[in-house]
């Protein structure tokens, strides 16, 4: 089992144990979908591509949520506050830009 890299005390030797991550799985799915769209084999693949791109939009929010949980456990409130502010600012920026663009 691989240690959580976000936990304190993780050692630099751990990366070599974990060879595949979520980005690799998305990359593999993307590669297959690009091939299918490129060769006009399946129009459905275009929908899959857009859905996978959606993952790129939401991952920072998930990553920040993990950090908030971790720093909350450490009672590291200043950085919990910074991460919450960042989530709110980023969300408001995106919402505001989309709202005004429409």
């Amino acid at each position: 089992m691989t240690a959580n890299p976000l936990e304190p005390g993780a050692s630099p030797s751990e990366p070599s144990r974990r060879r595949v991550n979520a980005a690799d799985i998305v990359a593999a799915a993307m590669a297959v979908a690009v091939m299918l769209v490129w060769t006009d084999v399946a129009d459905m693949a275009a929908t899959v591509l857009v859905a996978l791109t959606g993952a790129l939009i939401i991952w920072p929010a998930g990553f920040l949520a993990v950090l908030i949980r971790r720093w909350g456990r450490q009672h590291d409130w200043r950085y919990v506050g910074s991460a919450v502010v960042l989530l709110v600012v980023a969300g408001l920026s995106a919402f505001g830009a989309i709202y005004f663009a429409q």
Partner: protein
Amino acid sequence: MDIVATTGIGPLVVVVLATVTAMLGAIGGLGGAVLLVPALVLLGWSPVDAAPLGMAMVAAGSFAAVPAQARSLTSNLRLGVVLETSASIGAAAGAVASALLAPRVLMMVLGVASIVAALAGGTRTGQRNLPVEGANLAALRDQPGTLASAYVDQRGRVVPYQVRRVRIGMGLGWLAGAIAGMTGTSGGYLKTPIMSEVMHVPVKVAAATTVFMAGVTAAVGLAVYAGQGRVTAAIAPAVLGGLMGGRIGAWLQPHLPAPIVRRALSVVLIVIGIIVMIEA
């Protein structure tokens, strides 16, 4: 695909370009869109069509690189979150202010800032943060309540570091965010030199931290493009290249000596500065 129909270049070219720029981005701490978008424009894309590809490539590169860089203990996530808070507020202000200022002036400011940052890092000799034999990595890194941390260099030695001038860094981070917001970039090529040269953070840590910050910025930008209906299958090659380049860059970076990363970053920053000033 409509890429071929509109520009005459195939998705494979976009994949290769995005892979190279995302790899450079992950190593040098740049978003990379500032390199990819001009390259696509040179190949026949309109800037309006190329912009979402640049943003998608940055988001994908960051998505691929950040977990690997977090596991290799290179990125300082606390520092990234703190600096990005002020940079995001600056970016929002910059986006609003962009309507009030001449784009040509903004681009010239961006180009000059990029070259000044390149000279600051490229002309510095020596290494500020030196490895400490036998240091306890677990005790030095991620200490609650502080931004100080440590990383492991290419020879496996522990390098502790302090983060200096946090307030000045946050102020400059706000400014970098504002310039980024005004010019529609992630501003990573300004944030890395700020962390490295002003806050005295090791350049590899600064670069990895910037990759995380650029991912947050790019995700917001991508959400905006999605809201405008501009996220289509045509951007998939850029996403695929970004994922591969981010992974390769994150794998390469820990194996490179810090002075080489710093000088390579300076060269790329000078190229960016020249590109931006020519565009202006």
